[in-house]
């Protein structure tokens, strides 16, 4: 075997790993962008994991229920997953915005309620989702005709529609927050709700809308697992497996900016894909250790950004986690 051939095999392997990084990063990206919108309006939602699990279950159920072409079924399924996530987020919005309950407690409760031992498990078991093999799943599309470009082609341009959609979404969220009137209002609501209120901005409305949008995107992120990465449904929380928590850490890691969410998502996606790469290279590491890497990384990130220096001007919305009451004196 010549040295050249060996190199090309390794190249292929690395390309596969990079493509996997993008794939595994996609649900994280959807969920993180959703959490970003909610947090920018001043509402912390720790229920991402639960909303993702519920979105995954509902999205998968929709593919079993609806009949039609692959494309139409999948679009409907993603829409259903989004609605499911938004419905869960509505609980959080009502508790924290209208009733001004603690955002942390409400979010944790939501994860437990909607999660792998709660609503999504009940929903999946009642409808016997695990018994049905996947009938529709996202395949890769070569939309740009760039599939065969070296390295970049297979990594970026031989992906599924969900991946492309996440790019469009990143751009849209970034532009929305930075450049539009509504985005300006959202940021004002998250930074200084009393000021926003005095300027005639409806704080309650903005918070509801963005918490719901955040839930919808978390639902779509969940559907990435059941329709794309590991098509199908399994009981418990192994399907999403903590991605919701990583997404929350990701928002902090990205300094509350959409474009950095994308970078972070692929970084964490890469950590998820790393075990396969190492195995292929013949390096044997305990799989449990490798699989825990993204979570260990999450802890490291949280520690780093919690230092006094980082806290000063990281970009955290000033009113994050604080309910707003107008006539409070």
């Amino acid at each position, binding site marked *: 075997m010549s040295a050249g051939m060996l190199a090309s095999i390794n190249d292929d392997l690395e390309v596969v790993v990079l493509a996997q990084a993008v794939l595994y990063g996609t649900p994280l990206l959807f969920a993180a962008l959703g959490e970003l919108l909610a947090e920018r309006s001043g509402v912390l939602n720790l229920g991402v994991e639960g909303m993702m699990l519920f979105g995954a279950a509902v999205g998968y159920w929709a593919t079993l229920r609806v009949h039609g072409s692959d494309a139409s079924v999948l679009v409907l399924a993603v829409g259903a997953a989004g609605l499911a996530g938004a419905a869960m987020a509505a609980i959080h919005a009502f508790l924290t915005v209208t009733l001004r309950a603690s955002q942390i407690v409400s979010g944790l409760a939501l994860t437990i309620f909607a999660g792998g031992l709660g609503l999504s498990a009940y929903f999946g078991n009642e409808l016997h989702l695990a018994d049905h093999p996947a009938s529709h799943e996202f395949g890769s599309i070569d939309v740009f005709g760039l599939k065969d470009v070296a390295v970049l082609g297979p990594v970026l341009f031989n992906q599924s529609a969900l991946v492309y959609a996440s790019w469009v979404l990143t751009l849209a969220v970034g532009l929305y927050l930075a450049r*539009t*009137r509504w985005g300006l209002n959202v940021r*004002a609501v998250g930074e*200084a709700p*009393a*000021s926003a209120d*005095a300027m*005639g901005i*409806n704080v309650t409305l903005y918070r509801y809308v963005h918490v719901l949008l955040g839930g919808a995107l978390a639902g779509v992120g969940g559907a990435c697992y059941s329709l794309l990465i590991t098509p199908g449904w399994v009981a418990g929380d192994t399907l999403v497996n903590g991605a919701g928590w990583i997404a929350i850490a990701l928002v902090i890691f990205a300094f509350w900016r959409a474009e950095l969410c994308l970078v972070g998502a692929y970084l964490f996606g890469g950590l998820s894909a790393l075990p396969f790469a190492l195995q292929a290279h013949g390096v044997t590491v305990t799989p449990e250790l490798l699989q825990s890497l993204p979570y260990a990384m999450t802890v490291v990130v949280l520690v780093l950004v919690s230092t006094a220096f980082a806290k000063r001007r990281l970009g955290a919305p*000033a009113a994050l986690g604080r309910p707003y009451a107008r006539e409070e004196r």
Partner: protein
Amino acid sequence: MVGITKSFPGVLANDDVSFEAAAGEVHALLGENGAGKTTLSNILTGLYRPDEGQIELYGELVNFHSPRDALDAGICMVHQHFRLVEPFTVAENVVLGDHRGEGRRFFVHPPSVERRVAELGRSYRLAVRPGARIWQLSVGEQQRIEILKALYREARILIMDEPTAVLTPQEADDLFGTLRAMADEGKTVIFISHKLHEVKAVADRVTVLRGGRTVGTVNAGDATLRSLAALMVGREIQESRRVERPRSTSDLRLLEVDGLVIEGDRGGPAVKDVSLAIREGEIVGVAGVAGNGQRELTEAICGLRDAVEGQIRVGGRRLASGDVRDAIRAGVAFVPEDRLGTGLVPSLSVTSNVALKSYRRSPFSRGPLLALGRMREAALQLIRRYDVQTPGPETPVRNLSGGNLQKLVLGREFESDPLVLVVAQPTRGLDVGAIETVHAYLREAATKGMAILLVSEDLDEIRALADRILVMYEGELVGELEGATADVEEIGYLMAGGHREPESPQERSGMT
């Protein structure tokens, strides 16, 4: 505004208030803290909804459901605490919430907004940097941005709430010039203040509020500082409330404060070189508009706040700065302004609150254990002696009414047999009966020999109780008067910083 009434839980902030302001005038709303000025303006800007009454604008009845309605009607307010978004640029703050001009565009275009803001600043001679971020600006600059926001929206009515509180005298003069220019253009400026000379300097007409009611409207040109002070603090003098006590003859100075300097919460000195002494059995009242250093002074004496300079002696013994336990040991008792939050623990029982300051010692503790039976007995005794209305000694104190809370705090502090009693706003929010009771307790405490420092914004109260009255203004003691003979107008005049402005002899003779 006609017949505006607004109440908050436990407080009637506005009681049938009416006033009118004309286009092209600077109209001042004058009143002490708590007179209802800010509540009134929050109603006018749609932030609060009135319980009763109506607002007419240019002859038309209006009904504001939210700040946006008021903004659309051309009413803008510059709040005491600015309503700015700190991480945003000046330009972003100006267009925020705007749905008519530049801000109407879906995509905000920063350069064109910044250009518009710069133009506006030039035409009113307000120096601004449109691209700067709010947190980089000084307080005076931030206020200019607030005014610019109103100009940008083409406001017809601009409300300024205590605008000079945060400004240097030079900045204040510039502000007055801007306000005058706006009025000359036909806009209405409503200027809220409790500082007499400012009101006199900038306003065309003055509406005076007291205790949530309108006292009257006068032309600023016809009014004198003294006549305004009289309106503000109240002319009806209730002599009947003063009950004479034999004047203390002791020479024993129980509390001595010498050259005290205390830093305020926002940096800068809140108390500047204050010295005072209170003798055994004497009540000394400190009068002043809230926020002139009284709170810092009481907190320093009780050890809740560090003194930067100067010293405090209680019974001849020097207190360690900022050490509450040392102050308690030396014999300082404190009846704080916030009686439920600072004076008591709301969710603990009456019994626990009674023992709160003395549980460490016998008879309330035996070794590491608390003597619950004795604590309960002491609580029952205190409830009887001070007539505290409570279902029982185990009731959490948050369920008690304001008057009973105050009796409980006073009782606990008296029972500790202090040398010095510091009392802040002891009757705020209490009904007449409870006020009489609290006053009787304070007189009794003085008769027993305590030295009492009474801080109050209620001049009637100070005049009813104090042997001597000290007036505090901007962290300094600016006057001392005899309690029995003090003139309310004189006190009000000093409280509002009147001593700073030399008055002409005609004006003095012009007072009623």
